[in-house]
């Protein structure tokens, strides 16, 4: 066996055609995701959103893309030239690699890897590098702040994300994404592991810098974060990477938790139904993410970090432990599902109770503390 056969398996032409199809699909999806987000958010705020460009504003994304391509590409004088110019591409490469490992229908992805889920984790870690390079290379304090915030946030939330997905991989007994999807013929894993799904969604919101975790790109605080200094085509590379990552994560979540191309009737109705299932499920997850953005206000940085380190990580490790116990003693899946639903209800209930509690000011904080005056 030569290296080529061992590693790449199929022919080069086949791989290139598949990559081209996925990239084209991704470009169209990203253009319409920006349109879709504006429409959905507008409806939540009782507005209309884009209506003028094309029928119902459908060409808005195309017009925006053309405008961005024509804009001047400005580079600040004290920016670090090569770091500044390569950073947008480095944020995009990991997202693209994730897309190459996802199964869209039975055995249909760019590559079906035996370690698919682990590949996604490994590649996601590289995503931070581009953000950090943008923050460091811009020669701008706001960009630096945004980069530091983004890196701290992404490193932290990667842990509960990975642990919650590993809990599901334990039940499936494999890391192969195609096999995980095929296993969900009778029930999607979200019915068995709702707590893992909640942790996954929360961590994904944070990894993508979506509201309420959009602190690194908060316009009202640090004027836009790590891509402050970018304009034109490089700025649009950041946007492309962000929306492509949103789509990739949604497909990933749909495959792992919602049954991917398999549930329901995936095997019986053929490949077109499998493709529709994957895409519709991923769009539902994206809609949920937009919905969260329209509903919740932005958190503070310390709230964000303490929520991850003091709540999410502990809960996800407990989940891993409980799943291990169930697998070791071979208890039935129904009991596991009931325990997990109870856990998810308790977790969400605790968050809700904490959110609606009355603020109890016991100690003076901030400026009051230094001035020594009593709070109003």
């Amino acid at each position: 066996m030569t290296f080529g056969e061992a590693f790449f398996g199929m022919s080069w032409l086949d791989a290139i055609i598949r990559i081209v199809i996925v990239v084209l699909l991704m470009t169209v999806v990203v253009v319409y995701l920006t349109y879709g987000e504006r429409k959905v958010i507008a409806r939540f705020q009782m507005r209309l959103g884009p209506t003028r460009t094309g029928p119902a504003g459908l060409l808005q994304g195309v017009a925006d893309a053309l405008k961005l391509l024509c804009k001047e590409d400005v580079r600040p004088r004290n920016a670090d030239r090569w770091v500044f110019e390569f950073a947008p591409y480095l944020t995009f490469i990991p997202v693209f690699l994730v897309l190459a490992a996802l199964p869209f229908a039975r055995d249909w992805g760019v590559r079906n890897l035996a370690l698919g889920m682990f590949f996604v984790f490994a590649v996601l870690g590289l995503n931070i590098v581009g953000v950090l390079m943008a923050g460091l290379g811009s020669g701008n304090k706001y960009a630096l702040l945004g980069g530091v915030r983004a890196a701290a946030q992404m490193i932290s939330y990667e842990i509960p994300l990975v642990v919650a997905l590993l809990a599901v991989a334990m039940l499936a007994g494999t890391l192969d994404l195609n096999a995980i999807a095929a296993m969900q013929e009778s029930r999607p894993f979200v019915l068995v592991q709702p707590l893992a799904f909640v942790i996954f969604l929360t961590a994904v919101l944070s990894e993508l810098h979506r509201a309420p975790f959009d602190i690194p790109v908060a316009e009202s605080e640090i004027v836009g974060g790590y891509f402050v200094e970018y304009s034109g085509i490089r700025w649009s590379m950041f946007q492309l990477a962000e929306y492509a990552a949103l789509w990739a994560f949604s497909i990933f979540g749909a495959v792992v938790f919602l049954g991917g191309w398999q549930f329901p009737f995936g095997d019986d109705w053929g490949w077109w139904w499998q493709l529709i299932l994957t895409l519709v499920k991923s769009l539902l997850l994206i809609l949920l993410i937009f919905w969260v953005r329209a509903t919740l206000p932005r958190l503070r940085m310390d709230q964000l970090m303490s929520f991850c380190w003091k709540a999410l990580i502990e809960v996800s490790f407990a989940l891993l432990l409980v799943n291990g116990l169930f697998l070791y003693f071979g208890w039935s899946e129904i009991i596991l599902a009931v325990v997990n639903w109870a856990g998810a209800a308790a977790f969400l209930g605790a968050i809700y109770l904490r959110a609606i509690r009355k603020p109890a000011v016991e100690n003076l904080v901030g400026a009051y503390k230094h001035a020594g005056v009593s709070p109003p």
Partner: protein
Amino acid sequence: MITEVLWWIVAAGVVGASAGVVLSRSVVHAAIFLILSLAGVGAIYLFLTVEFIALVQFLIYGGAVTVLILLALMLTRMGASGRPEPLTGAQAPFGALVAAALMATLIGVAVATAWPGDLGGSPTAISIERIGAALFQNYGAPFIIMAALLLVAFVGAIVIARQEDGD
């Protein structure tokens, strides 16, 4: 054929990036070259068909370690990116000596050892199940001791870094 060409490109990239780490004039550039170099080593692992090790290399060295270095740079030298600064001092010859000795040792060990499982010069793929079984069954105790050691170091680092009101 095309795989061998790719291998040479990746290998040249690793060597070039490693040279960039020690020769570049700015710490930020050196850190970014380090990421390139480590990711290239991960790609070399892919050519050797040890996919799991390759992915671990990307995850730990490409993702976590170098990000920590970059984060530390951001927190300590605000906006010092791109400015040239001297990276070599009086200890440079000793560093070169240690590096040369280490390289000689590693090459000697790699060439002299009869590695198990190499059939006819081509590498054998090892499944993740075998790695998992070895890690958690045969070598379970060392694994747990390592984990405890890391936990102690972690708690110790937090205690040292933490500043109470009175400090």
